[in-house]
């Protein structure tokens, strides 16, 4: 069933009828969802879609190319601020500004990719970390970017006609972009470029001897990844309506990495799962004191031993614990779990 008979079967976007069926079902579900769901869930879906976009972009760098980045919050910030400034100060149309933001983030990604040619592992982590922190610091100190206070996102107009203001309206902007870009990522990873990335991850020296141009593909991986993150940042600016530099901090970069790790390193499907599940978890844990039973218990604990005002920090503890446990016990993440379950039930009585 899974035997590939020729090259074109290998690079097909959806390689079985079952997959086509679920793909069409997904489109149908995404189209009907905003008409049925209440407002909060649409907000949640938007948030999830943006995080999926970041996770897909970061996974192409971390999962497929094997380069660590702890500075993706920097690209996210670049995307957000560029979109807002291009629309606000230069009055570009939305889609042009968003593409420009992606492109500028990609240029920065390329620049960050240059030192990455000589660095690996822990050193790369430190360099990207420094990049992420420096970007936020610089944006926060220049009045042009609104300084520490941040700036307001302009009203979103599509094609100069319809104004988008509600979460439901934004849904129809965010979801198609995420959908198309995710599909594009899946497609890209099946081509020559994707295979080059994987070869670099598995062994860069072996890849180079096989004729993979390391300089080209490593910087390309950074640029593509930064492009996706920049676009996501631009969308986030409109979802929040207001951006300030301090929200694009180091913790955000860790969250992004957590999406990739929890979902599964090196699979696009895993990134989608990771983005969705982790966003849901983050939103749930944000108001942890309202959860049934657990919230009560936590409030009692807080009252007796900890502080009541700091109870929302439980989110940080849980997410940290999840990251550690996933890395230690299920290195392939949710995707690995899904594959194992699938194989188990396929051969069930045996």
């Amino acid at each position, binding site marked *: 069933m899974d035997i590939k008979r020729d090259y074109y079967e290998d690079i097909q976007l959806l390689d079985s009828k079952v997959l086509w069926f679920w793909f069409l079902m997904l489109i149908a579900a995404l189209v009907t969802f905003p008409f049925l769901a209440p407002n909060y869930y649409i907000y949640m879906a938007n948030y999830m879609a943006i995080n999926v976009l970041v996770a897909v972009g970061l996974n192409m760098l*971390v999962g497929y190319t*094997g380069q*660590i980045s*702890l500075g993706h919050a920097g690209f996210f910030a670049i995307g957000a601020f560029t979109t807002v400034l291009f629309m606000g100060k230069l009055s570009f149309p939305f889609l042009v500004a968003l593409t420009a933001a992606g492109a500028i983030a990609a240029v920065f990604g390329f620049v960050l990719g240059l*030192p990455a040619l*000589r*660095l690996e*592992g*822990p*050193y790369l*982590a*430190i*360099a990207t*970390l*420094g*990049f992420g*922190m*420096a970007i936020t*610091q*610089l944006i926060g*100190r220049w009045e042009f970017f609104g300084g520490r206070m941040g700036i307001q996102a302009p009203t979103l107009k599509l094609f100069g006609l319809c104004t988008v203001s509600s979460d439901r309206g934004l849904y129809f902007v965010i979801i198609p972009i995420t959908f198309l870009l995710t599909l594009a990522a899946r497609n890209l990873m099946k081509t020559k470029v994707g295979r080059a990335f994987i070869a670099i991850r598995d*062994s860069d*020296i072996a890849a180079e001897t096989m004729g993979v141009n390391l300089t080209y593909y490593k910087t390309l991986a950074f640029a593509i990844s930064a492009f996706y993150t920049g676009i996501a940042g631009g969308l986030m600016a409109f979802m929040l309506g207001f951006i300030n530099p301090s929200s694009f901090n*180091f*913790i955000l970069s*860790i969250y992004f*990495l957590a999406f990739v*790790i929890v979902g599964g*390193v090196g699979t696009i499907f895993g990134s989608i799962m990771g983005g969705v599940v982790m966003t849901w978890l983050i939103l749930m844990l944000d108001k942890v004191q309202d959860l049934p039973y657990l919230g009560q218990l936590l409030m009692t604990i*807080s009252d007796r*031993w*900890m*502080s009541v*005002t*700091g*109870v929302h*920090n*439980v*989110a*940080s*503890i*849980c*997410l*940290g*614990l*999840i*990251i*550690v446990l996933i*890395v*230690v*016990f299920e*290195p392939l993440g949710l995707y690995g779990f899904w594959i194992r379950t699938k194989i188990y039930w396929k051969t069930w009585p045996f």
Partner: protein
Amino acid sequence: MFLQLIVSGISIGSIYALVALAMVIIYKASEVPNFAQGEMAMISTFIAFMLFDGYGHGFLVSFSGALGFAIVLGIFLEFVFLRRAKDPNVLSLILITLGFQMMLYGTASWKWGAEQKSFDFPVSDFDIVNIGPAVISYLNIATLLAALFLMFALFLFFRYTKVGIAMKATQQNVVAARINGIRANRILSITWAMSSFIGAVAGMMLAPVATLDPNLMMDPLLKGFAAAVLGGMTTLVGSAIGGYMLGIIETLFGGYVSLQFKSVVAFLIIVLVLCFKPSGLFAKHYVRRV
């Protein structure tokens, strides 16, 4: 002016040097930069604060308590989580330390809240000594002495004790060390404990100067990284020198160029050093086997 800047640079450099040392000890043992270093130190400092301010113990008790806690914390993290990871690569190790970082940060914010606390230190930051035209506070002298003492102790430890030599052996080659009867796992636990201890000293020396809140070590951690990268992630002496160099460069930059962009200097140094001499100023270049 110049001398004053040098003196202040050296005193803040001591903190950076301590953080860098704590980082390098772990890096040498397991090839992972410990991103939780700052938070481990921060939480130990809070323990000292709690014992002193909340329970009214004396300084000696609070500080020894905090240092003891730091040792236990280091061993706990290594033993409970890090040791369970089977055949981890660099990415997973970094992620584990990032997970620790979030857990510890969350715990500290939950317990002590985000508001800033003041830590009444026995040595004052306001009593000063004149050295020629420059002044130095008692607290800075204490920091400097503590840092130098710890460095000297580390030197003796790695030179003359059995455990120290075993630790060096494990850092060079784990398999060979195991063959020679060294329990590499236990050595790793001791490494984490030592690193946590040194970090805690840095945190407690920093707390009276900065304000005590969960973000206490965020900035020094990055500076410690920069110092370690500057000196070389594989040499203890180099990273300590890197710490002092970074402190001096940073204060000079703040004094003569721009106070506003002072905190960007560390990032600039990281990027420049990594671009031109990735193994650091004082380390031998490491060639990877294929």
